[in-house]
């Protein structure tokens, strides 16, 4: 017995810990140098840790597939990774995430925007740290619109008035193709009418969707929006063919870039309108920092999370990549405001940003929601009548019967 105890003692003596390589999986960054500099500084602070970045595919559904593959296989080459704001519930339920309650005190959590913290808390435990924030915003033509509309009806009226004078303009463009973006766009309409989407559309939700179908798509927005996502709908606004446009924060930079936008300098920004009696709601987006529960290097990963969620790094990355920081204080910082005056407006929106319905089976829930919402918007049931479906097969069967009936040629 003694010898075993002794051996145990020996092991626990504080030896000089070996250098550690931390594997960080993220999407392909737009300003890679900003990220590289930030991580090199982290390595200076923690000489023992090397950070190796692996860039996954850009689309979130593909990054999701890659992450699930690696986590199910308990891939040793995965310690820290970025997850979309709608994944914490699923990944926590699967036991992939290492809880980080102890990493941020109650006090510190208050410094983040409330939406992301709410999204990252599953069954009362903090399972990821907010890294950046996205939220739905209303962009509009400052040269045509005097004051941003408060309500959706005002938006419709203003749009009608302006397009009457400028027939080549559309009133509004947004993302109404059948994909995750549809849930975001309609959530903003439904919630701003006080309606609920999950577990099913309530009466006020149906009202909002009906308004979108009858008063928005067609009269104000071109029916083409039913097949458009962020890029196609934005292109119309950039070409100067639309008065109002709904999109994420990064559109601000693109819309004001003369090389890519005909309306640079004439773009206004405002929180999204609401229905009478409701309040303006933006769908929360953005990425969270998460630690793999199976990783042997969780301690080092936690150090990197604290570093990346810290004020200095958030400020630096915000200045260099112009994405929305997760710490609200960063948006009050004079240097940041000097650089991005529109942040003042955006901050109010970030505070009002709401996470989408949360569930471990979010992918399925969202898919069903997209199906229901899209069918209501296009006013066409997806259902296939049995007869027209089976008629061609019957013809095929007859053909085969006729062709094979003859004498064995």
């Amino acid at each position, binding site marked *: 017995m003694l010898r075993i105890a002794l051996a145990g003692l020996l092991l626990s003596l504080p030896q000089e810990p070996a250098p550690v390589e931390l594997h960080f999986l993220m999407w392909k960054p737009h300003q890679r140098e900003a990220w590289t500099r930030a991580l090199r500084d982290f390595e200076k602070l923690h000489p023992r840790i090397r950070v190796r970045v692996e860039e996954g595919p850009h689309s979130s559904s*593909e990054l999701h597939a890659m992450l699930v*593959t690696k986590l199910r296989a308990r891939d040793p080459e995965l310690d820290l990774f970025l997850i979309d704001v709608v994944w914490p519930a699923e990944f926590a339920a699967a036991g992939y995430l290492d809880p980080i309650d102890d990493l941020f005190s109650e006090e510190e959590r208050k410094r983040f925007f409330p939406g992301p913290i709410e999204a990252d808390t599953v069954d009362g435990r903090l399972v990821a740290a907010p890294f950046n924030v996205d939220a739905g915003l209303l962009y509009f033509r400052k040269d045509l619109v005097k004051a941003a509309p408060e309500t959706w009806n005002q938006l419709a009226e203003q749009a009608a008035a302006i397009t009457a004078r400028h027939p080549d303009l559309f009133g509004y463009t947004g993302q109404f193709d059948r994909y995750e973006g549809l849930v975001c766009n309609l959530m903003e309409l439904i919630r701003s009418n006080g309606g609920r989407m999950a577990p099913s559309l309530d009466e006020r939700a149906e009202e909002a969707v009906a308004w979108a179908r009858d008063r928005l798509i067609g009269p104000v927005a071109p029916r083409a929006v039913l097949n458009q996502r962020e890029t196609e709908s934005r292109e119309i606004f950039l070409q100067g063919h639309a008065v109002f446009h709904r999109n994420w924060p990064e559109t601000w930079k693109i819309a004001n870039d003369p090389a890519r936008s005909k309306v640079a300098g004439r773009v206004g920004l405002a929180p999204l309108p609401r229905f009478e009696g409701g309040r303006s709601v933006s769908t929360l987006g953005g990425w969270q920092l998460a630690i793999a529960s199976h990783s042997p290097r969780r301690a080092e990963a936690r150090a990197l999370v604290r570093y990346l969620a810290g004020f200095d790094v958030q400020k630096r990355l915000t200045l260099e990549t112009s994405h929305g920081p997760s710490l609200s204080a960063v948006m009050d910082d004079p240097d940041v405001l000097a650089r991005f005056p529109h942040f003042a407006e955006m901050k109010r929106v970030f505070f009002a940003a709401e996470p989408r319905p949360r569930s471990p089976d979010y992918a399925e829930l969202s898919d069903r929601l997209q199906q229901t919402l899209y069918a209501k918007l296009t006013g066409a049931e997806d259902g296939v009548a049995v007869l027209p479906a089976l008629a061609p097969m019957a013809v095929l069967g007859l053909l085969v019967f006729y062709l094979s009936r003859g004498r064995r040629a």
Partner: protein
Amino acid sequence: MTRVAAVVLVACSVAPFAWFASASFKGPREIAQRRPTLVPLEPTLDGYRGAVDKGLAGWMLNSLIVATATTLVTLPLAAGAAYALSRTRMRGRRILLGLVLAASMFPQVTLAHTLYGMLQSVGLVNTRAGPVFPYVSLTLPLAIWILASFFREIPAELEEAARIDGAGPVRTLVRVFLPVAAPGVFTAAILTFIYAWNEFFFALVLLTGNDVRTLPPGIATMPGQYTFPWGEIAAACVLATAPLLAAVLLLQRRIVSGLTAGAVKQ
């Protein structure tokens, strides 16, 4: 009358691709314009440059590697099986050919999940070698069917003459059988290569990293975060199709005989 029908047929077959190819030479502004122009007013290579930036060259190289690897693995296996099924009086030949034919019917999704698990356990997911496995199992039946049909057309006397002339089994195969069967083997190789070059499902599922992606998934998921680059997509499509078009136009007779080989018995 047939002349008119022929013109209509050619128009319907080629026009859609031609129009899309013309789109590949349009600048971003002209292409995003409402009611597009038929022929590019200010032709530019932006589309092609943009496509290459997105990694088209890499996708093309990956497609080449995966398709060639598949063909190199499938052909010998198929030649062996086809020879056994069509030249030797092996027992159970008919049942085996039936099974092989059935094997070409499997839907990709049915194979996908278990195959994904198998490849993952040996660490082949997200590697260029990964898709070669499902591609071989999906192209083998077609290759065996085509080769068996070609081998059946070769008179048995040739091999018998070689045996009488004193050539052993190996020399008979190499000096007599294979040279005569070469056209058939070449046809089966082209069709296998084209299948592997065009396959999308397994490429999408098994190749997530942009550096290992082949053309189909690369092109299918081109619309990125910031742009819906019709110009780049059109350019990528033209470049992805060019090698196949060349192959088809040059080897048309071969491909046609391969496709119809054995499908219709005299």
